[in-house]
């Protein structure tokens, strides 16, 4: 699974990445986690609101910092 976090480097985006890592660790998912910081790339992915979480090319969260629990349920649904 490939997880991308999109955010221009703001504190919210860093926290989102932390939450993603925690959720993956708790679920035991091996995922490739990438943090995108270039707004030009966001547009190509269909992201308007940051922070955003993109799993295998699909935007699953945009505009809010997701909680670890919410990420866990979304990630296990995705699998």
């Amino acid at each position, binding site marked *: 699974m490939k997880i991308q976090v*999109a955010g*221009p480097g*703001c*504190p*919210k985006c860093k926290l989102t990445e932390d939450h993603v890592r925690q959720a993956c660790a708790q679920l035991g998912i091996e995922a490739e986690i990438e943090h995108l910081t*270039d*707004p*030009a790339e*966001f*547009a*190509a*992915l*269909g*992201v*308007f*609101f*940051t922070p955003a979480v993109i799993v295998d090319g699909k935007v699953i969260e945009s*505009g*809010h*910092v997701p909680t670890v629990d919410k990420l866990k349920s979304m990630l296990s649904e995705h699998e």
Partner: protein
Amino acid sequence: MVMDLVLAGLKALQHYVATHVLTCLVPAFLLAGAMVTFVRREAVLALLGEQAGKLRSFSLASLSSFLVAACSCTVIPVASGLYYAGAGVGVAFIVLWVAPAANVLALTYTGTILGTEMVVARVVAALLMAFVVGYVMTLAFRHEQRETAMPSPSSEGQSILGRRATILLVLIVISLLAPNYLVAQGPYLHKVLLWLVLTLAFSGYAWFALPREELAQWLRESWWFVRLIFPLLLAGVFLVGVIGAVLPEAWIRDWLGGNSLSANFFATLIGAVSYFATMTEAPFVHTLMDLGMGKGPALALLLTGPGLSLPNWLAIARVFGVRKALVYVPTIMVLGTGVGWLFGNFIL
């Protein structure tokens, strides 16, 4: 000497922050948090993506910028997203301009510090400039070929704001405006009491009308604004106090006094180059006005201060291309100077 400067900074903190925390900052942060949580921003964007007539799409873009973004850090991805989804270049740059130049937090704070007249002028001037910027950008890049990289966001028939959320937003706005305008002359305690009653009212409404999860989300988002903006505000206001104590009055009167074109241009230049964390521009302008800055230059600085900065130019150039930045930045500077001069001489 150093001691005097520290004292000046602390005095500014007491003057601009301590006396505004309860009746202005707390409700403003809660309002910004509520907007981020409850406004369905995808629905707003879907409206803007439509290729409607200029007048309609420009007005819509200006108005929705108040709703969509509450600070300048979030606005670049929104504007570039709109642009790549097929919205006109004018619409994208209107969002890019209006959101930081006239966002909720900054407007609220400007109102309590500089008074109603200046905040109304700020809104009107920001909208006026937005329309001109929109037309200039559209005209300058009308022949440009571009690919739209992604589909417009679909709103799936959602309304922009639910009924309960609308009521909550209105109640928060009342709690923000009433203490500051109804009890403008009275003792501070009266303000706080009215604020307390109104705050209990909207908290009670939120408690009974909203699901727990949305309530928690709202408080989390508000807390984010506090965490992101409050430290910058404290540091900025402290600096404002120090700068106010250091700058000789004669300089301010010579360079920024009156409403001449040169004073307006100089104010615009300061605002366009330097970075002002959102909200800090209001105490800065207030301090300079006390030292003799004219009202026109004050307005120009209020608009371009948060609206434009060197880091902002670079980000725009990277996302939209150097040519668009080279048209946008000078346009804003000419307009800022013009608007300051116009308002300063004929309206304020």
